[in-house]
């Protein structure tokens, strides 16, 4: 049984500051050409919650899923 994590961004609140992207140890996020936050590597997420805890706009949510 493995654990997977689902990353949710509340787009209405997100200001694309990039703090989650910069301090993610697994490089889950990336900016697209318009400097908008994208989830590119969700499968790598280890659930450390560093993005959720540091997000200044409280728009991150990491959901733990048991498989």
């Amino acid at each position, binding site marked *: 049984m493995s654990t997977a994590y689902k990353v949710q961004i509340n787009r209405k609140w997100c200001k694309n500051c990039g703090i989650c992207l910069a301090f993610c140890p697994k490089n889950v996020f990336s900016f697209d050409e318009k400097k908008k936050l994208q989830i590119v590597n969700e499968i790598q997420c280890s659930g450390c919650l560093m993005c959720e805890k540091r997000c*200044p706009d409280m728009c991150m949510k990491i959901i733990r899923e048991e498989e």
Partner: protein
Amino acid sequence: MSYLDYIKEKQFPLFTCAGCTHGTVTNTFLRVADELKLDKENTVIVCAIGCAGRIPTFLDFNVLRVTHGRALAFATGVKLSRPDVKVIVFMGDGDAVAIGGNHFIHAARRNIDITAIISHNEIYGMTGGQYAPTTLQGFKATTAPYGMIEPAFDVCELAKGAGSTYVARSDVYHINHLHKVMKNALTHKGFSTLEVITSCPTQFGRRNKMADPIKLVERIRDITVTQTAAEKMSVEELKDKIVIGEFVKTERPELTEIYEEKLGKLRKN
């Protein structure tokens, strides 16, 4: 119950600029409030003017917003009239140690059961980027275009000297440390001071070649050292560093308790 139950969701997104880490302090506060199961009805948050002072108006507690720098004065009044409620004060660095400096030292001296959370972003962000007494030497502001020439205030040393019974400093990079000390500050009996190093990309970063919010948080990561690491470092090495950790954790008679006791005795006579 989730930590998001403590906010007024209709008023979101937050008014702060992109990458303003005052939001991170709020985020941590909400998590701690959720962990401690703070009662919305029996918690009063007092705040004043400024970016850090405006954030509590978006929280679903009893919020009192007052004149600039006077948050602690009003909080003292709230606590003395209702000793049963939990009083938390959110302040910026200008609010706490510049305009409200006098209220700050006297609240610490009285040891009244209030938690003061001071967001230290080294600048007056909302009024246009003037330097604050906490701006480090050499950094630029609108009123210091060639760099700050005055030495900066050390908020924790000030609180220690004034007699605060809990003094701690943390920052928005070391988020788990911030969570731990904020929980300790909120559960401490007596006046507790928590200084949080935050960043201001719009006013401070833009003038100091760090407009990118990420660069500012990386700067916080690089300039902060933990207490245990600081003990092994020389004075020369610690010159441009900020030490984080818990500096004071003592007990002293609390003001409202002395007051109630005195009042009880006088009523008997």
